[in-house]
C-alpha cells in the first residue's frame, strides 16, 4: 500500500488547481502451476503491478494504463510521463456530457494476509490424492491488491491472499468430473476430502454411456451448471447501458413484458464478498437487488450511465457486470435432489453458452463433465455431451420447479490479465423441461 499511497500523494501535489484525477492500482504476485496426467506440465511465477490514471480538466477526461516496475523512482517517472501525455491529450477532446465525478472523500480498507500455502506441500498433497487417477488442473495462489485514490481525497485499499486449485479427474473412457478447492487457508485434510468426493463421482462415469436423443427432459442443474447460465446473463444483462440500448438479454424482463419464476431473487452482494468494495471509477460499490421474486428490480449503474440516463450510480464497474452475485436459496434438500428429479438429467456443469436469440434471452450451450442419466431417483449412467437450446424465461421461469436449500460459493478461477476476485453464491435448480437439440 505504501508504494501506491506515495504515488497518489505525489500526484496530488503535481496536478494544477483545475485538474482532478482518479488513480486505480492493481498488483499481484502469483504462483501458477498447471498439471496434466497428475504431473506438473508448466509452472511459473508472475509479478505485476499497474496504475490506471484518469485525468480530468474542464469537463474533458482520458484514461491511461501504466505498468509499474516496483522501483519507486522509475514508477514516479512513469506516472509523471503519463500525466504529461494526458495533459497533451485532453485539449484534443470535446467536453464529455456524461462525466459524473464522485466528490466524496470516502475511505475503504480491507486486508487479509493469512499465510499462503507452501507449494511443495500443495504438490505433495495433490500427488498423494491423485495416485492412480488422471488429474488435469491448475493451481493459482498469491496476494492480490487493488487500490483507488482521487484528487478529492477518496482512498480505497484491498489486499488478500488466496489460492484456487481448479481440477478435473478423467476416466479412461474420456468422461470427467470437475471440482475445485479454493480459499485462504490450505488444509490438507479438507483438500483430501474434497478430492475424495470427486473420485467417488468418477466411479459412476465408468458405466456405459447412455445415448440421449434430442428432445425435452427433466433436469437438475448443479450450482456450477447454473453458474454458466447466470454468467452469460451477466454479459450486459443487468447493465444500465445495455438495457437502455436494447442489447441486454433481460430487456424484456426490465420492460415488464416477461418475468421469471417467483423463486428467483438475485442480489449483487458486494458487502462480505471477496471483491474490493470500490469501483475503478471512484465509487463505493453498493449492494443491489437485481431481481426480486422473478421481477426486475435494480440495474448496475456506473457513473457514465448515471449521467446519460438520469439514474443513480451504484458503484458498478466500467462494463456494469456483477462480481458477487447471490441467488436466494429454495427449499429442496440436498438429499432429495435425485428423488425429486425422478427420471431425467443430473447436470454438473454446462459449457460455452451463447445466445441463439438475445432479445428473447434464448441460449444454447453444452453439457460438460459429469452429466448423468437418472431413473426413478437413481443414477444410471453417464450421458454423452449434449447441446441445449432454451430460453432463460423458460428455464428460470415457467419450467423452474425448485431451488436447493443449500448454496455453493463458487470462486472465479479466471486469470485473464490478472486473477479474478469475482464469486457467485448459487443453489442448484430443478428444471421441469430442458430442450436438447444435438
Amino acid at each position: 500500500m505504501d508504494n501506491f499511497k506515495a504515488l497518489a500523494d505525489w500526484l496530488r501535489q503535481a496536478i494544477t488547481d483545475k485538474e482532478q484525477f482518479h488513480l486505480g492500482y492493481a498488483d499481484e504476485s502469483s504462483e501458477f502451476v498447471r498439471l496434466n496426467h497428475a504431473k506438473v506440465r508448466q509452472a511459473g511465477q508472475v509479478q505485476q503491478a499497474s496504475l490506471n490514471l484518469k485525468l480530468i480538466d474542464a469537463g474533458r477526461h482520458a484514461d491511461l494504463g501504466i505498468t509499474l516496475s516496483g522501483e519507486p523512482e522509475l514508477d514516479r517517472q512513469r506516472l509523471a510521463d503519463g500525466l504529461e501525455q494526458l495533459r497533451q491529450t485532453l485539449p484534443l477532446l470535446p467536453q464529455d456530457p456524461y462525466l459524473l465525478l464522485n466528490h466524496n472523500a470516502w475511505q475503504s480498507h480491507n486486508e487479509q494476509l493469512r499465510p499462503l500455502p507452501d507449494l511443495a506441500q500443495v504438490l505433495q498433497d495433490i500427488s498423494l490424492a491423485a495416485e492412480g487417477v488422471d488429474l488435469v488442473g491448475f493451481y493459482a495462489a498469491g496476494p492480490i491488491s487493488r487500490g483507488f485514490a482521487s484528487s478529492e481525497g477518496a482512498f480505497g485499499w484491498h489486499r488478500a491472499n488466496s489460492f484456487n486449485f481448479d481440477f478435473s479427474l478423467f476416466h479412461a473412457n474420456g468422461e470427467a468430473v470437475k471440482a475445485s478447492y479454493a480459499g485462504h487457508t490450505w488444509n490438507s485434510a479438507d483438500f483430501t476430502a474434497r478430492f475424495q468426493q470427486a473420485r467417488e463421482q468418477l466411479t459412476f462415469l465408468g458405466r456405459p454411456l447412455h445415448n440421449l436423443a434430442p428432445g425435452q427432459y427433466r433436469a437438475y442443474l448443479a450450482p456450477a451448471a447454473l453458474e454458466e447460465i447466470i454468467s452469460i446473463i451477466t454479459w450486459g444483462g443487468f447493465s444500465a447501458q445495455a438495457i437502455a440500448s436494447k442489447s441486454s438479454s433481460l430487456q424484456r424482463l426490465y420492460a415488464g413484458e416477461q418475468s421469471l419464476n417467483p423463486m428467483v431473487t438475485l442480489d449483487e452482494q458486494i458487502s462480505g464478498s471477496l471483491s474490493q468494495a470500490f469501483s475503478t471509477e471512484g465509487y463505493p460499490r453498493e449492494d443491489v437487488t437485481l431481481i426480486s421474486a422473478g421481477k426486475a428490480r435494480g440495474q448496475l449503474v456506473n457513473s457514465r450511465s448515471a449521467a446519460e440516463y438520469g439514474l443513480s450510480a451504484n458503484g458498478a464497474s466500467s462494463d456494469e457486470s456483477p462480481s458477487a452475485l447471490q441467488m436466494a436459496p429454495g427449499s429442496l434438500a440436498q438429499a432429495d435432489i435425485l428423488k425429486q428429479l425422478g427420471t431425467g438429467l443430473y447436470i454438473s456443469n454446462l459449457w460455452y453458452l451463447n445466445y441463439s436469440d438475445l432479445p428473447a434471452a434464448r441460449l444454447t450451450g453444452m453439457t460438460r463433465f459429469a452429466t448423468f442419466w437418472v431413473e426413478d431417483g437413481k443414477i444410471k449412467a453417464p450421458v454423452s455431451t449434449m447441446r441445449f437450446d432454451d430460453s432463460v424465461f423458460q428455464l428460470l421461469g415457467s419450467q423452474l420447479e425448485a431451488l436447493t436449500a443449500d448454496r455453493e460459493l463458487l470462486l472465479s478461477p479466471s486469470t485473464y490479465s490478472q486473477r479474478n476476485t469475482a464469486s457467485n453464491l448459487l443453489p442448484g435448480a430443478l428444471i421441469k423441461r430442458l430442450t436438447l437439440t444435438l
Partner: protein
Amino acid sequence: MFEHHTTLKKHFSALRTRAEFFSLRYVRESGQYLSVRKNVAEPPHLGHDEGAMLTVRLNGVEAYAATNDISLAGLQAALERAEQQARRILPHALLDLRQQPVSSDVGDYLSPDLDQPFPSLSDCYQLLGDESAAVPKDERLVTWEVSLGTTRVEQIYLNSAGAQLRQAQRFVFPGLSVTAFDGSDSQTRTLGGTNFGQQGSAGVIQRFGLVGAASQVADEALQLLLAPNTPHGPRDLLLMPDQMILQIHESIGHPLELDRILGDERNYAGTSFVKASDFGHLQYGSPLLNVTFDPDIPEQLASYSHDDDGTRASKQFLIRDGLLLKPLGGALSQFRADLPGVANSRACGWNRPPIDRMANLNIEAGDKSLAQLVGGIEHGILMSTNRSWSIDDARNKFQFGCEWGQLIENGELKGVVKNPNYRAISAQFWRKLSAVGDASTFKVLGTPNCGKGEPNQVIRVGHASPACVFSNVDVFGGDA
C-alpha cells in the same frame, strides 16, 4: 524502435544462473482505443505496458518467472525465482526436456507500413465522429458506435543458445455497430463484428471500408428488424468470409491444437475429437478443403518470422485436398508427440508463457465467383458476420449464429431473414464443403479475442478465407 535492445542484451549477458538453458522475452505494448457512441466521443483509453519473462531449463525441467522490473537486479531476481520453481516441481514434472532442441536464430520482423505515421488522435476522432453522424436519423436506431483500436507491440527474445529475435508490429481494428429496436425486438448489424483487424497503418481503415459504411450498416439493421425469422430445416449454406473465419477458428483451429490433443487443456479449453493417430490419415473434409498455417500474408494479424519460442515460421498445409496432415503444435508439442507441426508457440504478453495457439489459419481460395456460388444453390441461405458461437469441449457439436441471412432459391438471392443460426458436427461438416470461392471472395480477417490456457490468455489470431458452400445443413431462426 527496439530502444531497450542494447540494455537488455547487456543485462542478459550479465545474468547468472545454474540452468542449462535460459531465455528472456521482453514485451512492450502501447495502445489506444477510441470510440464515438451516438455522436458523443467516449473518453480515450490509452495504455503502456512492459515487462519480461525469464524461462529456465534445469535438469530438463522448465519453469518461468515474469517480472515488471526489467532492471538487471529485477531480471536476475526473476531468473532466480524461475530456478527455484524448477527445483520445486522437479519431483512432480511431467516432461524431461533435456533433449529438446532450442533456437539460435537471429532476425527482425516488422509489420507493413510501420514507418508510416498513424493519424493523430484528433484526426481519428474526426473520422469516427463523421461516421457516427452519418447514421441516418430514425427513431428505431437506438444506439450506434464507431471505434478504432490500435496496438503497437515490440518484442525482443534472447536465449543462452544465441538467439536474438526482434519484432515490431502494429495492429489496427476499426469497428462500427448499429442497433435497431421496434418496441419489442432488437437487431444489431456491424461492420464485420470485431473481426476487421490487420497489421499495418491507416491503410487498414481504408481496406475495411469504415469510412462511408454507416448508412449501409444502419440500413441493414433496419432491414433485419423488418425481416422474418430464418426458416427451420436443411438448406445449402453459403458462408461469407466474416463467418467462415469463426467456422475455421472453432472447428478446425482449436481441434488441431496439439496441446489439446496431448491433454493439457482438458480442465479448461477442452480436448479435441482429433487424435494424434489421425494425422496423415483422417479425411477431415471434402477434397475441396485446403487449410494452411500461413505467416506470410504481411497484413494478416499473426504474420511473423518466428514464434515466441524462437522457432522459424513458414507456410504449411495442415489439410490438403481434405486430408489431415499436420497439427497446430509448436516445438515443444512436436517433441512431446513426435509429430511434425508449425511455429505456433505464442504468448499473449510478457506475463504469460507461450503455448500452442492458432496464428494465421486460412482456407485457400478455390475457383468459383460469388455469383457462381449463389448460382449453384437450389435451396439455400447466405449467412454473414458472426454474432454467436458455441461448441463442445472436443470441438465437435457446434451451433453458430450470424447477424445477416438471405435466402437463396433456384440460384438467386432472395429476401433477408433475421436470427440466422445453424448447427452441425465438425467431424461431418467439412465433408459437406461443396464449393469454394475464388480470390475475388477471399478476405484477410482475424479476431483479437481467442481465449485459452491456464493461466488464461487472450490472443490475436488471423483467418483468411473465401466464401464457401456447405450442403444440407440444419438452419433455424430465433423466437421473436
